[in-house]
C-alpha cells in the first residue's frame, strides 16, 4: 500500500471526491493559484478550474455563509480556513445559520469547513489554537479530527458525503511529520466512530489529533512497567462514540483523557461526565485529564513546550490512575 503523509492523504481524499462528484467544490483564501498556505490544495486549480477552486476575499463569514447557500441548493462546498483560528469570524454563521437549518426548516447544509489547527510549530496565540470546544456545544454540527493519514483520507471523504455541516480539523504539526499507509481509491472512515489504536486492559487513554501520537508513546513507555494501556483515538468529537468510549473504560476501569486544548471547558469534561453518568460503578479510579493549562498559547518555544501536554505528563497520569 502507498505510504503518504497526513497532508497528502487529505489532499488525495479531497481530490478523489472532486473527481467523483462534480457538486464538490472548494473555496477559501489563497487555495487556488497558491494551492493554500500549507499547499493542501496544490494542483487543484489546474485540474478542476477556477469555478471549482475559488480564491476568495479575506472574509471568513462570507466564505462560510456562501458555502451554506451553495449547500442549500445542492452543492457540496468545502471551505478552507487558512488557519483554524480564523473560524472565530465565521462562528455566527456556523452556530446560528448552518447548525440550525435542518432543525428549523428541514434543510440540509452539507458543508465541510476545514483548516489547520493546533500548536507545536511556534505559531503564537493566533495560529496555534484548537477550537473544537467552541463548536462542540452546538447541536447540528459534527466535528472530526484525524490523527493518521488513513483516517485523514477516510474522514475527509465521509465529511464531504455527510448531509450535515462537518468541521474537519487538520493538525498542522502532523501535516508532514506523520506518514502511513493509505489505500488507493475509495474508502470511508465513518463519522461517529472512534478507533482503538492500541488495545490494552489496564488503563484507557481517550485522545485525538497530535495527542494520539504522544499517547501512543506514553503507552509504549508504560508498557515496560507492565501496565497495558488501551489507546482510543476519538477521531470524531461530535457526536462522540459513546459505545467505544464506554466499553473500553468499563473494561479497564481507569481512564485518562488527553487533549492538547486548554483545560477548563475542553471536551474532556463532557467525556468524563458521560463516563461517570453511565458506568460509574465500573470506575476503579477518578477519570483524570492531561491538557494544556488555562492560558492562551504562547509563542516562544520553551513556553509553548511547557504549555503543551508532554509524553511524560501522560505517563505520570497513567501511572497515577493505574496505582490508585
Amino acid at each position, binding site marked *: 500500500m502507498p505510504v503518504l503523509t497526513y497532508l497528502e492523504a487529505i489532499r488525495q481524499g479531497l481530490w478523489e471526491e472532486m473527481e467523483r462528484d462534480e457538486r464538490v467544490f472548494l473555496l477559501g483564501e489563497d487555495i487556488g493559484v497558491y494551492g493554500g498556505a500549507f499547499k493542501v490544495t496544490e494542483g487543484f486549480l489546474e485540474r478542476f478550474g477556477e469555478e471549482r477552486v*475559488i480564491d476568495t*476575499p479575506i472574509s471568513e463569514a462570507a466564505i462560510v455563509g456562501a458555502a451554506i447557500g451553495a449547500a442549500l441548493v445542492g452543492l457540496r462546498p468545502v471551505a478552507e480556513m487558512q488557519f483554524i483560528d480564523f473560524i472565530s469570524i465565521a462562528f455566527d454563521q456556523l452556530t446560528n445559520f448552518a447548525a440550525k437549518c*435542518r*432543525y428549523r*426548516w*428541514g*434543510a440540509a447544509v452539507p458543508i465541510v469547513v476545514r483548516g489547520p489547527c493546533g500548536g507545536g510549530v511556534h505559531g503564537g496565540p493566533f495560529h496555534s489554537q484548537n477550537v473544537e470546544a467552541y463548536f462542540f456545544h452546538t447541536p447540528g454540527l459534527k466535528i472530526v479530527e484525524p490523527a493518521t493519514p488513513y483516517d485523514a483520507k477516510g474522514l475527509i471523504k465521509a465529511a464531504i458525503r455527510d*448531509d450535515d455541516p462537518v468541521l474537519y480539523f487538520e493538525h498542522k504539526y502532523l501535516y508532514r511529520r506523520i506518514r502511513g499507509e493509505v489505500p488507493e481509491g475509495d474508502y470511508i472512515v465513518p463519522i461517529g466512530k472512534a478507533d482503538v489504536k492500541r488495545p490494552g486492559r489496564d488503563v484507557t487513554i481517550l485522545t485525538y489529533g497530535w495527542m494520539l501520537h504522544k499517547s501512543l508513546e506514553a503507552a509504549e513507555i508504560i508498557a515496560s512497567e507492565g501496565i497495558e494501556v488501551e489507546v482510543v483515538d476519538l477521531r470524531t468529537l461530535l457526536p462522540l462514540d459513546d459505545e467505544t468510549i464506554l*466499553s473500553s473504560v468499563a473494561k479497564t476501569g481507569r481512564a485518562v483523557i488527553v487533549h492538547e486544548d486548554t483545560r477548563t471547558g475542553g471536551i474532556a469534561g463532557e467525556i468524563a461526565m458521560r463516563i461517570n453518568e453511565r458506568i460509574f460503578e465500573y470506575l476503579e479510579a477518578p477519570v483524570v485529564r492531561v491538557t494544556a493549562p488555562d492560558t492562551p498559547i504562547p509563542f516562544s518555544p520553551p513556553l509553548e513546550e511547557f504549555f503543551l501536554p508532554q509524553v511524560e505528563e501522560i505517563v505520570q497520569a497513567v501511572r497515577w490512575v493505574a496505582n490508585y
Partner: protein
Amino acid sequence: MEEALTPKQLLDMYYYMKLTRLVEERLQRLYRQGKIVGGLYRSLGQEGESVASAYALEEGDFLAVMIRNLGALFVRGVRPWEIFTQYMGKGTSPTRGKDNIVHFGSVERGLIPPISHLGDLIPVMAGIALASKMQRKRSVALTYIGDGGTSTGAFHEGLNFAAVLKLPLIVIAEDNGYAYSTPKHKQMAIENIADRAIGYGIFGETVDGNDVIAVYQATRRAIRRAREGLGPTLLEVKTFRMRGHAEHDDAWYVPRELLEYWQKRDPILRLETYLKEHGLADETTFEEITHRIEQEIEADLRYAEESPMPDPQIALEGVYAESPSVSESPSISRESEVKARS
C-alpha cells in the same frame, strides 16, 4: 428601457399588497386577543416594495425575506394559513412550531428563511447565486436588508464577495427611517444606502419604495443585469415603517410629522389612485379584491385556529440527517442502561 406592467400584473400586485395588509391587520387583532405567541412585526407602509420586488422574480429564482417582507412571501406562493400557524406556534405550521414568524421556507419553493441575526442572509444568498452561476442556471438570488442591517459585517463581507465573483445577487436595502428606535442618521453617516454600491464596484440605485411600479422596474433591471452576468445590485428603496419595531413598541420616538408625510404616500393608496387614473380599476374592483381576500383569510385563519399545537416530542427531532440520538432525559433511565451494558 422600462418594462411595462400589464393591467393584470398591476392588479396582481394590488392583490398581494392588500392581502399583506389585511393579514397583518388580522394578526394585530389576534395579537391583542393574546392568540399570538411572541411578538408581531408589521410591514405597514412597506407592502409595496416587498411585493413589487418579489413580483419581479421568475420561476427558479431564490428569495429570502426579512421581517418586513411578508408581501414578498405571498407573491411567491405562501398562503395566509402558513403565516397564521407560524405566529400561533401550531403543529401544522411550516416549521411545526420550531421557529416563528417568517422564519420558514423550503429550497423547492425557492424560499430561504432568515435567521434573526441581521445581515447573515447576504453571504448565504451570495452562495446561492454562486451555485446558480456554477450550474449555468438563470436563477438570481434576491434578499432584503434594513437600514440598520447594513451596519453589520455580514452585509459587507457578503456584498463584497458577490461583487468580486460577479454573482447574480440583488439586495434590496430598505431605508424605512428607523432600526428599532434608532434613526438612520445614527446608523450611518450617509443619506443614501445605495452609495455603498460605489465601494463594492456594483450597481446601486435608489428608488421611491412606495411607488410599486418604480420598484418593480428597478428590480427588473437588476435581475436582467444579474442574468447577463453583470453582477450584483444594491437597490435602495425609500419607504417608512408606519408602526413600531414590533407591536409592543408604540414608536413614540418617531415624529408625528414623519408619519403624516408618509401616510399620504401609502403604497396601496397610491396604486389605487394610479389604477383609477389609468382607468384600470375602480372602487368596485378594489372592493371585490378585498372581499375575496377576506374570505381567504377567514378560511385560512379557521384552519390555523383549529390546528393542534405540536406534539412536544417534535422538539427532539431533526437535528441531524440520520435519526438523531438526542440525549436522553437526565438520570431516570440510567440505571437500566448501566445494567444493559454489563
